[in-house]
């Protein structure tokens, strides 16, 4: 992850001369924004504001499955549908009109192994990656969860046996008499 971060150049500063400078990225840096401001982003995307994708996998019903469906959902529009200018037909997007042009195409990124370079495989990778950015502590959470649940389960059994043991002597130590 560190090597990946270093491959990006990040603007930092100002330094003690008051100038901004470029340095290699660190894992704690944010992704460099593709647009300087919201207006530029809208202008480049047919008037729509592209959302921040940091937690997008948690911000949509269906999560990563939804993202996969949008990425693979670009199809030719049904003959009778009126599209707004600059919009693209998408089977998964609400309303079926999305401003984002198809971001993936077969063969645009080579894999290091012989995985097929298809939109389908790319879409799986992108949605898995976005789930990771939305929930980077998920693996840690599950690992700890196993231990906590096993502990509580054993604890519950012990508590149940202790409760049985304590209540076993209730009629002897505290007889339920009418007196």
């Amino acid at each position, binding site marked *: 992850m560190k090597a990946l971060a270093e491959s990006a150049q990040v603007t930092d500063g100002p330094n003690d001369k008051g100038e901004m400078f470029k340095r290699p990225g660190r894992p*704690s840096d944010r992704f460099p924004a593709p647009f300087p401001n919201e207006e530029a982003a809208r202008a480049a995307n047919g008037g729509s504001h592209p*959302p*921040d994708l*940091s*937690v*997008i996998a*948690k*911000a*949509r*019903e269906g*999560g990563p499955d939804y993202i996969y469906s949008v990425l693979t959902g670009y199809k030719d529009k049904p003959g009778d549908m009126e599209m707004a200018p600059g919009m693209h037909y998408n089977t998964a997007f609400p309303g079926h009109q999305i401003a984002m042009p198809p971001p993936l195409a077969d063969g645009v990124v080579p894999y290091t192994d012989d995985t097929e370079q298809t939109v389908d495989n790319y879409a799986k990778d992108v949605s898995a990656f976005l789930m990771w950015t*939305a929930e*980077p*502590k998920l693996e840690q*959470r*599950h690992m*700890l*969860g196993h231990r*906590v*649940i096993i502990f*509580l*389960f054993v*604890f*519950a059994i012990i*508590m*149940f046996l*202790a*409760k049985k043991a*304590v*209540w076993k002597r*209730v*009629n002897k130590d*505290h*007889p*339920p*008499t*009418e*007196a």
Partner: protein
Amino acid sequence: MGHASTYEPKTKLGMWFDERLPVARMMHGQFVEYPTPRNLNYWWTFGGILVVCLAIQIVTGIVLAMHYIASPDEAFNSVEFIMRDVNWGWFLRYTHAVGASMFFVAVYIHTFRGLYYGSYKAPREILWMLGVLILLLMIITAFMGYSLPWGQMSFWAVTVITNLFSSLDMVVPGLGTSLVQWIWGGYSVGGPTLTRLFALHYLLPFVIAGVVMLHIWALHMPGNNNPTGIDVKTRGDTVPFHPYYTIKDGFALVVFLLVFFAIVFYAPNWLGHPDNYVPADPLQTPPHIVPEWYFLPFYAILRAIPNKLLGVIALFGAIAILFFVPWLDRSKVRSTSYRPIFRWFFWLFVLDCLMLGYLGAQMPEGIYLILSQLGTLYYFGFFLLIMPLVGIFETPRPRPGSITESVLGRPLPPDRTANPAARPEVVK
């Protein structure tokens, strides 16, 4: 309260302290010796569970508040900062968020238990009313807490709920609008609204803790109700709180925490709404604004009534009516176990609340709206008509003579225990 203390300090320091501030004597009397009916079932364990819920919320909440920033520009990002960069931040936040839901699960079970066994009836009216007050404070606190991440649902829930007060314009023109602007601290929901919601969200849990103490005090005056609803008559009807109920409550608590943490670790967002991971945008209304699940029945009642002011009155009335339950119920018998007719109405009421919860998440139109209106009608009818009338006309089943008698008897149907001949003397 209710019994003499046998506390004997064992050390010199203990005796010295006991003469000056007998706090250990009080704790010993109230949480060790405290005579508790020997027949309490597992529905009675939720009181202790609720104390733990409150403690979890306060402890996680205080640490979260050290990292959270209450400002419209920073709130959403500071929550993500907690999730990513604060040590154990994700655990604290998910425990706090799931904890709120589990708190309501427990408080609703606790309330329905009180309703079923008539725990609100004399001499426990104050105890019940303090409980309703705690429920009300919890609702307000949870609502404010939900606003703090400043996501889309946070923002629009605040907008919708605070706007309810504008319905007062229908009574005195201008009053509602002025009130809403006073609550907002401006002409729209914004920074001043967020900071005051945060301040009050931090304050109210301690108010709740105070009322909880009064609630426990009011409980320890008459002592616990029990599944038979019959008063404690002899020492033999009770057992000391410790170890019998500390261990029973403890076991129930561990099972509760098992469910609690299974959700925290494996499905922390299950009870939340995806829209709240979208930062608040005052210019874009979400297509479907819904509150958290624990408010859905009340939300359904609000929307069932076409008139805004009446809807708001029904919403508040749905809570307020609980305060009057001790006087609405005219039955001479506490426990619904011995009330053959009321029992049906009670379970229908539980179903009604579940149905309203489901309807609260649907669009208020067509069949959903009609069902919401029927559900609302039954909700209020249950308290205003069924409770008083069934109490008067119903013939309760015969009850055992005492708690001891009900414990000693084999699990006989209650209608046979009235006949002394059919009752075994001593089992075991």
